[in-house]
């Protein structure tokens, strides 16, 4: 008796939250699913039912396949670089040295900047006529003439990845640093006494503390990188010759520039599904990691 009463009361207490969740997440999602089976335009006609046409068109189109490859590359390379850089920065900032506090505060800055500001800043750095990168590389003798970093398909995506890393590695570093602070000093001291080298100390003493938090950072960053839009839109708008057109840019163009709400919705749901698969795979990894430790 009292058990059911408690659980009913629990549900009642949660009701306001559930209503809000359904309103802000559930309903738009359901409506997007509905839209994705119609040929609705963004403004004007409500559209009619077209079955899975939108999905078939999107999945078989060369634009989607190319954008999927571009997005995957972007996500893998930028996230891998952010993880490595983040851990290295955290290990450095975990040492005792003068100015450590100031450096920590400074490191958060790129991550705290709005993406649009960050993107505009990097556009200036990459500028082919008076950009700092060209000037620096030429003065160091690594370049003999200025290059158009964002104007060449060979370098544009790499240039975007660098800009994205600069903005996002501090987040990984912060998470890693918090984890490092939790490593008991006596264990590291004991490892030193036992004569463990730096690599072994990292692998067997520090890594067990880092693994969980790093996986969380990995999940967050992968999902965000997969959905990347703003930094690319500001810097290249998907150019040159669509070499940096990611899935989110494709969704945006389809739904808003071309105003095909129906096929835009189907594309958005395909992307959502891909990100969900990634998230579920990671969650399984997380559980295994938690079980292992």
């Amino acid at each position, binding site marked *: 008796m009292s058990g059911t009463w408690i659980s009913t009361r629990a549900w009642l207490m949660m009701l306001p939250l559930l209503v809000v969740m359904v309103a802000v997440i559930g309903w738009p999602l359901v409506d997007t699913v509905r839209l994705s089976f119609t040929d609705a335009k*963004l403004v004007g006609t409500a*559209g009619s039912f077209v079955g899975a046409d939108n999905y078939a068109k999107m999945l078989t189109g060369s634009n989607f396949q190319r954008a999927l490859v571009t997005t995957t590359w972007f996500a893998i390379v930028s996230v891998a670089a952010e993880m490595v850089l983040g851990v290295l920065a955290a290990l450095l900032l975990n040492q005792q040295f003068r100015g450590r506090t100031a450096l920590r505060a400074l490191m958060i800055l790129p991550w705290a900047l709005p993406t649009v500001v960050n993107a505009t800043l990097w556009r200036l750095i990459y500028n082919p006529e008076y950009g700092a990168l060209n000037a620096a590389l030429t003065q160091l003798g690594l370049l003999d003439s200025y290059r158009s970093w964002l*104007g060449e398909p060979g370098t544009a995506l790499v240039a975007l990845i660098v800009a994205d890393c600069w903005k996002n590695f501090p987040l990984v570093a912060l998470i890693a640093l918090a984890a490092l602070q939790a490593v008991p000093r006596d264990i590291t001291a004991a490892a030193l006494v036992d004569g463990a080298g730096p690599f072994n100390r990292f692998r067997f003493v520090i890594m067990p503390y880092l693994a969980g938090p790093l996986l969380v950072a990995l999940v967050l960053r992968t999902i965000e990188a997969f959905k990347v839009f703003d930094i690319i839109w500001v810097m290249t708008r998907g150019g040159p*010759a669509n070499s940096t057109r990611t899935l989110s840019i494709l969704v945006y*163009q389809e739904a*808003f*520039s*071309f*105003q095909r709400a129906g096929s835009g919705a189907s594309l958005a749901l395909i992307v959502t599904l891909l990100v969900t698969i990634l998230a579920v795979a990671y969650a399984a990894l997380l559980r295994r990691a938690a079980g292992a430790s």
Partner: protein
Amino acid sequence: MLKSIPSALLGATLAGVALTGHAYAETTLNALFMAQAAYSEADVRAMTEAFTKANPDVKVNLEFVPYEGLHDKTVLAQGSGGGYDVVLFDVIWPAEYATNNVLVDVTDRITEEMKKGVLPGAWTTVEYNGKRYGMPWILDTKYLFYNKEILEKAGIKEPPKTWDELAEQAKTIKEKGILDTPIAWSWSQAEAAICDYATLVSAYDGKFLEGGKPAFTTGGGLDALNYMVSSYTSGLTNPNSKEFLEEDVRKVFQNGEAAFALNWTYMYNLANDPKESKVAGKVGVVPAPGVAGKSEVSAVNGSMGLGITTTSKHPEEAWKYIVHMTSQETQNAYAKLSLPIWASSYEDPNVTKGQEELIAAAKRGLAAMYPRPTTPKYQELSTALQQAIQEALLGQASPEDALKSAAENSGL
């Protein structure tokens, strides 16, 4: 996420039946402008202030976005039930905006005086299927700017009259070692590239569409892209052009690093301003060249208009505001930034003083303005063409093949 269509429709209907502002009540208008080229943000604010001084019962909230965001912002606001009363729109959008019921048809609001006074060519900016959806506000085309000092150094007497002559002169400048890459364009993957391409299409007497179907894969459309590619591969064009927008072109020209540049009216007075530019006083401007046997000059219609949205609850005040912004008085006062839409202004010494050269070029250029295709699917066509231009420049595809895939991807 996407808002449901029925509720957007409901919003539009409600807005339609809502009462217009009471004469004494304070009305607030929301207006969307762009933050670049032609009139600056400060100028638009000053023009608006003059309006609110004369109409104290109307308040105008101004919002500025970059040109690249103007179309999508307008459509998004409309898709979510409105937000703006007055919007700035480009010459390429009336077809789509009329088809999707974004702008109000104002044909009946336009007075005889306006019909007679405004340059005939300017009206194409706001027309679709014989109806008018606003007032032309920024009259603009791309001109050929040249650096007088560099031409003189190279021993060139006259600026080029044809595109072939332009290539010849650029070659001379390159060979004499004055500049390595004498020509600058805005060929970034954006609408800017289509404006340069359209200028060349008009010179080569090409067609974008015929009977609503792509016609740019042969004839003038192909000649235009071939010209761009050969100018690029021969090293006469600054290779960074493929990531330039108009502002980048202006900076390069103002630094004296380009002998020739294609750009809008606004560059003329800025490049002649000693505070802004290293080449002040050396800026020459002529209509973009023609092609022997095909055209005298070439010009793209890059004008923009002001219209009332269908979701506006205050169409009367919105129209009043548009009439003020496009009036001859306002246009003449700011003629240094954008040339007036009114025919008689071109005989007014207050307007022409100090920019006689630009006015002379405008008289020929504006008369030859060539429209980009009027189709509700313009955005898709433009995106496909932008890709084709970039692929051809980068050597990923031949101009023929690039244009063929653009035709396939144009949605037409």
